[in-house]
């Protein structure tokens, strides 16, 4: 859990940094001029990769569809806007998002389909029933106290800690699921 959170935080940090550091791709700036219909000339959109100081009708509208004396009248109607974007940020964001989504999907498939199958094969049917009983919510008044005080007793083994944390998380999610989906007490 904390590991996953750490990974996510790291990804976020990378993403923020990348967005600042990514070089300005020349394709990422443009000047867009929209010119409405004028007399016989149809409406047209012109785009060019110019910088901010060159972003006006005279530099961008090429070829100019009207003759010399009409150019000014035509250009007056046009509206030119300078726009920038960061394609690197978009790419990195989509890749991060899809990878997190993919990981969650795999974990979901593992939790719902693979784990019960594996457990049943390794430990036999009786163990499965026993572990389900543990999941029932604690109703006795002192059980919560146990939780509070026993937090200090941690087992030194790393794998056991991960296992323990995962069990605790699954119990919490089960409780939440019961409140929201079954008893409709919260978030109805």
């Amino acid at each position: 859990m904390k590991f996953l959170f750490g990974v996510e935080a790291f990804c976020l940090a990378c993403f923020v940094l990348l967005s600042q550091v990514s070089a300005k791709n020349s394709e990422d700036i443009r000047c867009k001029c929209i010119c409405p219909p004028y007399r016989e000339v149809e409406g047209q959109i012109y785009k060019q990769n110019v910088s901010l100081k060159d972003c006006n009708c005279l530099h961008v509208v090429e070829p100019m569809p009207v003759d010399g004396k009409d150019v000014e009248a035509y250009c007056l109607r046009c509206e030119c806007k300078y726009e920038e974007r960061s394609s690197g940020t978009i790419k990195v964001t989509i890749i991060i998002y899809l990878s997190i989504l993919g990981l969650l999907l795999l974990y979901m498939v593992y939790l719902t389909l693979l784990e019960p199958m594996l457990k049943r094969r390794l430990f036999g049917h009786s163990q499965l029933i026993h572990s389900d009983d543990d999941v029932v919510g604690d109703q006795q008044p002192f059980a919560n106290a146990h939780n509070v005080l026993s937090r200090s007793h941690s087992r030194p083994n790393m794998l056991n800690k991960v296992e323990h944390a995962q069990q605790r998380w699954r119990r919490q999610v089960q409780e939440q699921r019961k409140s929201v989906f079954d008893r409709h007490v919260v978030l109805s």
Partner: protein
Amino acid sequence: MSNGGGAASSTTHLLDFLEEPIPGVGTYDDFHTIDWVREKCKDRERHRKINSKKKESAWEFTKSLYDAWSGWLVVTLTGLASGALAGLIDIAADWMNDLKEGVCLSAMWFNHEQCCWTSNETTFAERDKCPQWKSWAELILGQAEGPGSYIMNYFMYIYWALSFALLAVCLVKVFAPYACGSGIPEIKTILSGFIIRGYLGKWTLMIKTITLVLAVASGLSLGKEGPLVHVACCCGNIFSYLFPKYSKNEAKKREVLSAASAAGVSVAFGAPIGGVLFSLEEVSYYFPLKTLWRSFFAALVAAFVLRSINPFGNSRLVLFYVEYHTPWYLFELIPFILLGVFGGLWGAFFIRANIAWCRRRKSTRFGKYPVLEVILVAAITAVVAFPNPYTRQNTSELIKELFTDCGPLESSQLCQYRSQMNGSTAYTDDPNQPAEPGVYSAMWQLCLALIFKIIMTIFTFGLKVPSGLFIPSMAIGAIAGRIVGIAMEQLAYYHHDWFLFKEWCEVGADCITPGLYAMVGAAACLGGVTRMTVSLVVIVFELTGGLEYIVPLMAAVMTSKWVGDAFGREGIYEAHIRLNGYPFLDAKEEFTHTTLARDVMRPRSSDPPLAVLTQDDLTVEELQGVINETSYNGFPVIVSKESQRLVGFALRRDITIAIENARRKQEGIMLNSRVYFTQHAPTLPADSPRPLKLRSILDMSPFTVTDHTPMEIVVDIFRKLGLRQCLVTHNGRLLGIITKKDILRHMAQMANQDPESIMFN
């Protein structure tokens, strides 16, 4: 005062120095209310301790500096995280939304607009056609037009919408069931002092972020603003655990959460000031000046981060930028007020319908199949939305199109009639062309879109996926406003000799801007459903940049609030709070009844007598018996059964933790050990086991009122101080107890609602 190890008083016994605070005392159970007074006292105690040690050494001085600045640090981190997550959600949602339509072959990660960004094949009439963007029909069938490709596009749209919705609800169900819904009603309750463990946790944060994108991309009639507030509050909660000043104190944590919700609205709309006002008006319960500054700072940092990440270019700094500056006229106040009335009426209707539907989902068999329900709603939405171009597109884009006025540079379908109308003046040679098929087909489609959105939003808000309400309400209001605006425009065009129009409008000039009507309509509908006032106006003019139009906005919002309040005083969030039975004591309602404290207190005449503890008479076994037999959260401690004079108040959770701790740490505590709450142990026979001192968990200054205190004063005390319970005395002797739940039940009873619907303590 209740003490957690205070050592400054001069009458402390030697043993008090050796007594360390028992770990776990002072924490709260899930679904319980916090005691604001106790939390604030704990914080002041901690602050005093740090300040008194400040002058001792440089290390203590830096510790005190760190303590003072930790608040700003938490808020900065929250703002950074909220901004980053909002940027991620925006980019991913835009991309996935367009995935229903097609793909960009040259760069798969671009959505439609970005794909055609550099292309030169876009024309004036068709601004979004370019060869790099291929619709699904083009990819699969090879042809872009024709009935076959329409059907293929239709089918692929429905397929993607359903798969996104299914994925979203499965992820929510498997990983974080608390991630569904809007989040704002629960956050309001949490900020008023309720504890919902896990609601603002890491898994909820991650799942809410991921599934919000999926839910928005599936085309459902929902928005992402409410869930973004939840996401920001999760970030605030997670960062507050890094600093003991906030992690150990529930009242201080709620200051951070208020600031975080301001950051959430700030990134949702790009409206920092609106975010602060939203936190003040809608979400927070207590909002002292310190929280105002922190919220301001959080909103600022979040807006800054979002703007610096901003990948879409300068065209998207303001969400729905309004570029026109045409003035509005006095006679237009009439349609604006009519739009306000519509907003209020729709708001009242929506609240009633949505609550009725949610109640049905909660209590009947409908609620047993959440996944099926989501798929069904998504299927119906996709099937009905595709044929109408206004509902097929992204709702934010629809709002943007509706807000934009028709100028010579616009080419949307809404403006085709306009160019035909103006054809007589400048652009074409045929002056006698009337305005027809364009405007009628646009109005028809808009009307159908309006009805569709009104119906679908009722069923979508409250689904088991993250769902917000702001954007659908604004869309409904914008559609209604635009229809009214176009109607007014046609009226002004065809009847320009009427008195009203002759005064202000010239022939051929645009005096009616339908885009403005859309904006006013959006504000009115959002105000009608949430009953916000100032924060809504500020958010809308920060969204659009239309500062000239504040007065029409205010007029419409006030009208919609008045009309909505005529039908029911609650907004949608308060209605959901009441539906769920959360213990939320609304600060906006007035208590006007003349009952007294003794009418509300427990025990009533038919109840068993008050469960009390005596200060030095009980044994451990008897104490455990009292705790096991009753389910009360706390017990008053009295001097003796004869005198019934009050000593203090002890909480159930603290007692159980203290007894467990004593049995573990101290030897000789047995079932018949005496328990005493006094300073010195009572005199006991020589062979009795070691007594147990529980003075440290006793609250020595519980709040008391007399039995003749009017209930309006009691309710005021509960609201202003944030109490959880209050003891009732008569002639100095303990008579009963009033808890927050009793007050809520009493208020429900007075308002003829069901008092049994108040569920939590």
